[in-house]
């Protein structure tokens, strides 16, 4: 913090704007906003999940009944497992599809074309989320493009309803929604990879695939983990995708939460919300070392 200019007239320690006495004032509005309207409500949800609803009013009586109720209904428990399963499958597919793409982009595309091609991937990601889900109805529905196409080539003569309203449709749309995120995160780590190492491995007799999995993949592990976390977590809390393309066959835990809260069963809904939150916290704690929000959001 010392001024190093040659023979300054006065050797002053100039406080930068935002330091000194006013150092913490800037935090105040954010602490009010995020404290009062983010942390406090989360705390309330935690309490609610351990309280009771009697005659539509919440009684401050500590109990595990809400959790017991959730785990006593087979449909709920199987929905929870299905949600985890869908989230794992969609995450694996999204990242699995994104890896060859990111590899292609950073290895085979000329440098000046990389940024525009990357932006092209992110464009759908930043366009309306609801519309991206909704647009799949026009493809998978009974009057949708896929059915039209199948009838046109003669595979079937009547519209098939099998494409929509089940888990495969949910997984497909989730992969569609989160692919750009996986591609972006993976690309930003592969881009920094020194390709000479791959060349060296192949010089020493490794096959290209072996070289990729033994040399490249271990080095971009933090990027892969970041991608997995930032794809997996939002999928756990998905509501719209299962609601719009999943129907009754594709229900996820998010739909249960919404149903509980819309039925004013706040305490039960809170318990289910806390299950998701607990899962996220565990995930974040396990992977906190490799987490880089900066990398994830390119900020």
């Amino acid at each position, binding site marked *: 913090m010392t*001024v190093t200019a040659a023979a*300054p007239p006065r050797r*002053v320690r100039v*406080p*930068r*704007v*935002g*330091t000194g006495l006013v*150092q*913490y*004032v800037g*935090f105040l*509005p*954010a602490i009010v*906003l*995020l404290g009062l*309207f*983010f942390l406090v*409500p*989360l705390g*309330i*949800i935690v309490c609610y999940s351990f309280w009771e609803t009697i005659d539509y009013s*919440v009684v401050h009586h500590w109990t595990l009944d809400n959790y017991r109720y959730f785990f006593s209904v087979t449909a709920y428990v199987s929905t929870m497992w299905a949600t985890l399963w869908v989230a794992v499958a969609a995450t694996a597919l999204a990242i699995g*599809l994104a890896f060859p*793409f990111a*590899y292609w982009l950073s290895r085979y595309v000329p440098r000046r074309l990389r940024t525009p091609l990357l932006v092209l991937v992110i464009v*759908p990601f*930043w*366009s*309306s*989320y*609801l*519309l991206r889900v*909704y*647009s*799949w*109805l*026009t*493809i998978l529905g009974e*009057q*949708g*493009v896929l059915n039209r196409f199948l009838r046109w080539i003669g595979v079937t003569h009547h519209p098939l309803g099998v494409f929509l309203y089940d888990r495969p449709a949910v997984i497909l749309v989730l992969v*569609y929604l989160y*692919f750009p995120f996986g591609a972006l995160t993976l690309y930003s780590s592969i881009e920094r990879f020194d*390709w000479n190492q791959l060349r060296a491995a*192949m*010089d020493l007799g490794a096959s*290209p695939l072996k070289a990729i999995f033994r040399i490249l993949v271990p080095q971009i592990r933090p990027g892969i983990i970041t991608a997995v976390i930032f794809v997996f977590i939002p999928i756990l*809390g998905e*509501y*719209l995708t299962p609601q719009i393309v999943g129907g009754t066959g594709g229900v996820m835990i*998010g739909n249960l*939460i919404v149903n509980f*809260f819309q039925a004013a069963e706040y305490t039960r809904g*809170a318990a289910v919300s806390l299950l*998701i*939150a607990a899962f*996220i916290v565990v995930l974040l704690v396990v992977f906190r070392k490799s987490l880089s*929000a900066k990398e994830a959001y390119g*900020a």
Partner: protein
Amino acid sequence: MARDLEVLSPRARVARWLLSGYALLIYVFLFFPIVLLVLFSFNANRYGTFPITGWTLEWYRQAFSDYQVHDAVSTTIRVALQVTLISTLVGTAAAFPLVRSHLPFREGIRIVFILPIMIPGLLIGVSLLVLFTSTFHWTLSPETAVIGQSVYTTPFVILLVAARLQGFDTRLERAAADLGANTLHRLVRIVLPLILPAIVAGALFAFTLSLDEFIITYFLIGGHNTLPIFIYTQVKFGITPEVNAVASMLLVGSLLLLALAFALPQLVRRARRAVLKARPA
């Protein structure tokens, strides 16, 4: 470097073609649904799907004359403006101490600031619903939705402005202080102009996120409609070409704003350079 590898591995040429074909398929996969949506909004077929029976602007005309759409658009814009104002002010203010203070628990605060982005919006929505209705006994309104959306958009502004502040050349401030500028002067004349592109980008970002936000709004807006909520309630009754038209307009609107958000820092830099050049030395 890539060329060298190809010399080593004769299969690399094949791999390159295969991967390029794969990438092309990925782009088709990403854009097909969106292009289709826009295409159907101009399709005369009133079922909003194939076959294309002719081109029309009828659905746009209908959308423009629908009072529900009007209502939803004006609510959406009003909410988005308020969210933008709140999150830009709060986010910019918080970015300064986040980058510059020497708090021992700065990392903890940083995590709290980023948490609303990482946690599913659903949890923000339901927890605020409980706070507003059960604890505060407030009536749900567009204003409660504004608070909920701000919780989610402010962290983005913080990240953007903090990143800019991190790369800030503090010698400029010291030079200004040497020349007699007080704290307020340095803030207004030196610091703010230099981080302005990040603030504006953050504001545009917040605005776009607010335009598209669904789940938090869904819980907190009560009986009102924003455009995404309106589209959602319409989709429940099946696809209509009118919804396709509304959807296409929302799509184009948010894409334009985002393009602006990304292009702005560069535009500002270019403009500033032009001004400096034009000024006599």
